[in-house]
């Protein structure tokens, strides 16, 4: 990693608390340019909350958060964000390219004028995520994997330096999972953009991830896969017996909640 570059994300002793409930306590993370970070942990561990913190949508209860050297703010075009959801159902029609187009200028007032430049920009992005084939199709008709590509394309349009992807691999079968992972890795390397990808399962990401941020029970730890996904580390994190089993080239976390 290029040490002279400013870190993309810095979290120092960050605590997030809602009322009496502490979601996260004492998070200390520094992420550099172009790093691929997987965020793992059980449901309710605060993974999405962390993303929202970086997006400036919630404020920390304690600690310092810096994104690209500054406090997080809403509408930061240096961050590309794809939340976990399926966009539309089949009824309400919107073309794939329209959805992607939101990422370009959906937040600007007025109606905008159609322009060749705009169309070209969107076409380029669609090619980058390999979605050109279904650019004109109604979004509701597309599969989960195809919609995920659109969401990633949308997030890329502002040329971000940080990409936040919330469970992009959820509900995808193996083939599409691999495609999305390959896509995100390609984007990470070619654009040198830092990626923070929330996932339930480390295995599809094993070949591409630089470090893992594991969150559970308000605690968190960050390090390489070998450092974090171990029985000792995870047991300490969960506060109960957790076994990490390696089999068939995959890691299985046994004993933890999902």
């Amino acid at each position, binding site marked *: 990693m290029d040490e002279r570059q400013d870190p993309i994300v810095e979290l120092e002793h960050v605590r997030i608390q809602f009322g009496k409930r502490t979601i996260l306590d004492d998070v200390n993370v520094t992420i550099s340019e172009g790093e691929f970070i997987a965020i793992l942990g059980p449901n309710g561990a605060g993974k999405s909350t962390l993303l929202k913190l970086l*997006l400036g*949508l919630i404020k920390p209860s304690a600690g310092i958060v810096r994104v690209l050297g500054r406090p997080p703010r*809403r*509408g*930061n*075009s240096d*961050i590309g*964000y*794809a*939340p976990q*959801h*399926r*966009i*539309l159902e*089949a*009824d*309400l*029609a*919107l*073309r794939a390219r*329209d*959805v992607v187009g*939101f*990422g370009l*200028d*959906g*937040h*600007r*007032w*007025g*109606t*905008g004028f159609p322009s060749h430049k705009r169309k070209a920009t969107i076409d380029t992005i669609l090619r980058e995520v390999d979605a050109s*084939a*279904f650019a*004109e*199709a*109604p979004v509701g*008709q597309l*599969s*989960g*994997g195809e919609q995920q590509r659109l*969401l990633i394309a*949308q*997030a890329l349009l*502002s040329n971000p330096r940080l990409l936040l992807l919330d469970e992009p691999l*959820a*509900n*995808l*079968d193996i*083939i*599409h999972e691999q495609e999305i992972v390959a896509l995100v890795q390609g984007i990470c390397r070619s654009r040198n953009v830092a990626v923070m990808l929330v996932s339930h399962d480390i295995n599809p990401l094993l070949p591409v991830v630089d470090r893992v941020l594991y969150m559970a029970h308000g605690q968190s730890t960050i390090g390489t896969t070998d450092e974090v996904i171990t029985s000792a580390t995870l047991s300490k994190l969960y506060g109960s017996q957790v076994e990490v089993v390696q089999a068939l080239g995959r890691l299985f976390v046994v004993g933890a909640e999902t």
Partner: protein
Amino acid sequence: MFDIFQYQFIQNAFAAGTCVAIVAAIMGYFLIVRGLTFAGHALPNIGFAGAAGAVLLGVDPVIGLLVFTISAAIAIGILGKAMRERDIAVGIIMTFALGLGILFLSLYSGYAERVYSILFGQIVGISQQNVLFTAVSSLLTLVVLLILYRPLLFSSFDPEVAEARGVPVNALGLAFLVLVAITISIAVQIVGALLFFTLLIGPAASTARIIQRPLWVILLAIILGICYTWLGIFFAANGSWPVSFYIATISFAVYLPIRLFSPLWIGHRARKNMATRQGPLASGVQNSEDEQNDATKASGRVSGISR
């Protein structure tokens, strides 16, 4: 038949009706897309109750319309979150307002025809001054809608990303509802609460089913709305039946075949596109993905409801 056009009040009806139809079509599209169809029905009725109150107090009905509809719009904007809870909140707000409306009507000893006309609407009896006022306010509303167009569209289809991109999603939604309320207050005096709801929903409901691009959905909806209005006034002027009946019937008559036959058409086209694109092997993979998605939808529904 066509000699009705020589009458001033018919010309006025066409002019004012056209303005209302245009604004209603655009607003209706956003209402539908934002899941606010019920609010589109409730707000005019709430306005009616406000008008009853205004008449009771002896002031211009439009004041009552504005007070009630804007208050309700703000309440709906604040209260209504998940769509299923929102419909109930909207309905009960409407019930509350209409209960007050009945109170006002029963306390009012005068001629209530003016108030009922706000409910049922007579598009006749419009003065040229009304036309001018309607035209100007429609134009202003259109300008505001044009300014809000992109962020409103973005936040309607994808509020999470829109918010992350800096769109003031909640404030915008509230502003939109207040704009709807103001439009209702003006339009309902011309076309009545029932008919305004029809003009809001009917055109956009029909076009949104068959057209993909929002701008074209809106443009075609405007054209449909104007056609419905002109035909409706024309038939009503030549007969003795009310305008709102004609427009509602025409709107439904256009919608029904579209609704019944369009899923086959769109579904068929899209699937054809995808099959040629991906080849026969892909469809097997696709199915398992859809199953997974359905399973998630099912469990999503459970956890959404078990609160």
